[in-house]
């Protein structure tokens, strides 16, 4: 049986029709089902549609085809939520060019949570990756759902952080939800679906065309109550998303970075033009309307450190520091330093970075 949901799948999947024309059609006919059933003459009489458009619409109308397609969507365990659906997030509905509907796989209730979007460059530095993971973990622990795009770099770290903290996370795709892009994130995608959800406005099998991503970004921006840019280069999708979020009236946060770092140029630029600096998850709680402050406990206070561990911890707190330097600064034996570092890592106070460097968390 075809219902409004399925008809909307059809309408939103008409890729040659602009979003405006689809909106106009919906306004005129009231629902997608009526567009589907309208006669060719009625459609032809509309001044906003060209003859080509009419032929395209009529050529794509096949009840059998649509039924089969919908069947495929449901057999994937996926669903489609339209604007009238209770699950369709209100904040997204308010956004400019809000999608007609969203394909969703996973837990729909994730959409009803408070949301924080986290975006950033694909070529992230270890600093960016660890910050993204930490912030996202804290947001998730405070009960918010972390929204991102499942790209390499910051996106991946953001999803990972939320999953590690046992929270909800939402990935918005620029391709069909049956396609994993990038391929290397296949396992991450499975984990996101099992404890959160993946979303896309694109029909199944849609390839990750480059021009899909700027449009995808408007959903990430639209879904966010607060948007955090962790690391961004001078040009790139993250800044587009930040601009969109600002246009939608959402608060944009940027993580301050080293002014000499390539990957922090964009975020530092954002800060100059008025974005709010963020150094801990709490900074964004007000904007994201998160009130579960108490859930985040400061773990550092409870942990007791041994003498060597304290020496080493003092060393790594200042900056990212190489093992060789820790040795010369503490004057300890290499075995002792390594022992202290492993212990600090296991206590969650230190992280090992590439290049035999360490940093405090």
């Amino acid at each position, binding site marked *: 049986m075809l219902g409004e949901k399925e008809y909307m799948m059809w309408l939103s999947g008409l890729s040659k029709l602009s979003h405006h024309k689809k909106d106009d059609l919906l306004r005129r006919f009231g629902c997608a089902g009526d567009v589907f059933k309208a006669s060719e003459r009625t459609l032809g009489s509309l001044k906003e549609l060209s003859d080509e458009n009419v032929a395209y619409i009529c050529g794509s109308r096949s009840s059998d085809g649509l039924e089969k397609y919908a069947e495929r969507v449901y057999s994937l365990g996926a669903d489609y939520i339209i604007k009238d659906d209770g699950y369709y997030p209100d904040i997204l509905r308010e956004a400019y060019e809000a999608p007609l509907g969203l394909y969703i796989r996973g837990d729909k209730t994730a959409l009803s949570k408070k949301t924080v979007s986290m975006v950033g460059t*694909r*070529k992230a*530095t*270890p600093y960016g990756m660890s910050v993204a993971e930490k912030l996202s973990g804290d947001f998730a622990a405070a009960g918010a759902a972390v929204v991102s795009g499942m790209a*390499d*770099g910051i996106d*991946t770290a953001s999803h990972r952080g939320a999953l590690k903290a046992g929270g909800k996370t939402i990935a918005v795709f620029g391709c069909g939800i049956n396609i994993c892009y*990038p391929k*290397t994130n296949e396992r991450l995608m499975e984990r996101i679906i099992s404890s959160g959800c993946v979303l896309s406005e694109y029909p199944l099998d849609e390839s990750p065309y480059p021009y899909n991503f700027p449009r995808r970004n408007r959903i990430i921006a639209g879904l966010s109550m607060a948007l955090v840019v962790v690391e961004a280069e001078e040009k790139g999708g993250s800044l587009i998303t930040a601009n969109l979020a600002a246009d939608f009236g959402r608060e944009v946060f940027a993580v301050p970075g080293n002014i*000499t*770092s*390539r*990957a922090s140029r964009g975020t530092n630029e954002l800060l100059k033009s008025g974005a709010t600096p963020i150094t801990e998850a709490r900074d964004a709680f007000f904007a994201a309307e998160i009130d579960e402050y108490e859930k985040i406990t400061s773990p550092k206070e409870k942990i007791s450190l041994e003498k060597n561990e304290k020496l080493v911890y003092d060393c790594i707190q200042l900056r990212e520091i*190489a*093992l*060789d*330097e820790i*040795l010369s600064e503490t004057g300890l034996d*290499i*075995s*002792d330093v*390594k*022992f202290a*570092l*492993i*212990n600090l*890592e*296991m206590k*969650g106070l230190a992280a*090992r*970075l*590439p*290049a*035999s*460097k360490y940093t405090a968390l």
Partner: protein
Amino acid sequence: MIVSVKCCGLEGLRGYTVAAEADVSKGFPSFEIVGLPDSSVKESKARVRSAAQSSGFNFPDARRIVLNLAPTGLKKAGPSYDLPIALGILAGDGKLRRYIFENTAFTGELSLDGSIKRVDGILPMVIHAKNEGFSRFVLPYENRNEAALIGGIDIIPVRSLKECCDYINGRYPIPPYVNTAQNAESADMLPDFIDVKGQEEVKRAMLIAAAGMHNILLSGPPGTGKTMMAKRLPSILPPMTFEECIEVTEIYSVAGLIKDSSALISRRPFRNPHHTISNAAMAGGGRIPRPGEVSLSHNGILFLDEFPEFSRDVLEELRQPLEDREITISRVNGTMTYPANIMLVASMNPCPCGYFGYSDKCSCSQNKIIKYRNKISGPLLDRIDIQVEAAGIDYNKLSADAKGESSQSMREKVLKAHEIQAQRYKNSAFSYNSRLDAAGVEKFCRLGQNEKRFMERAFNSLSLSARAYHKILKTARTAADLDGSENINVSHIAEALSLRSFDRNKV
């Protein structure tokens, strides 16, 4: 009149006796060599004829000469049969006394002017001849030092066919050669770790690697001294025993890599083939397979710089020798097994551009980095116990006067650890921690309650893969041995955990 002159053929490192039987008789004039000679042996006809004439003999051109190389079933190759063939013909022609041919082996390549040139593979030939009960080996003068390494058989070095014939006829006695000046290649001549400033973690990792003969992978950007440190690794390994020296020398002898001046190879081999190396050059090959780089590194170090740049086939080839400590190569002309008991030292950049994590200038995408690292397959990585990252170069360190630990003192520690291991494994077939199998790990790397808990916590909080478990225990065992500690304690485990950087660095 038939004469049989004994010589030696080689199949890999195994020698076998070949009899050059010459029949010089009346009949239609001809000269034929039979017994599966390859073209290099067939060509010896021309050399033998000229050499004989240059040495003042009349070559029996007018007679029928048949020369058979027995056993006839095995293929004979190389110029080392020249001398036995020439002697067979001359003796068959009645120009030489024959009593000597009973218990003497001969080998040598002839030059047209009658001089005798060096041949490859002398050492295994002499070993074989000695085991077969020959009392004398007549061989090229240039090969004398190499041959004299083996006692219990008289080595008679000869410079020319004339000299050799005079010796046989008793006109020119040659005393058995004894090598008095044993060349002493000592570790002192090797580059020293004292020159390496900073890089304490890598140095420590190398010390542990050497102490347990663990394979090691170094990662770091260009110019951090990975190659420099790898080249210093031989200086902290204890010297080879005489048996090990002979094993290595045999391989080099077969490969034709022995220089006359340094007959016995007493220094541990250090081979660093270029990454464009072919399969055959790495594993061994050729029509009659010769030892490749894995065998030439036997009892020593095989250093592979730019590890991921090696062709995948070449790298996968290493898996079997790393496991079995020998390599078997099959070619048309036979199957050879060469020893390959190596310590693998590999070095690589962290990403294609070389600077990931070290400098902001790295522009490699995550995808590219993963692809680059995936060039090294899991099973191969599984055979490498220690992975360590070089630190980025700090220029203050370079100029500092403070010197690092010297190779001498590191070598002493290694030696002590080796002794402990030899004692522990005296009833086993192996003598290093790195050679422990799963059952051995259970037996020799037992952990106390405290250590078990520590290990468990570490695995959970550091996201290590279960595959790393045994390697960490083996490395921890070596760290404990370096410490002179009977039991593995938590700090040894921590040390071993920190030497798994590759597992732990998510891109």
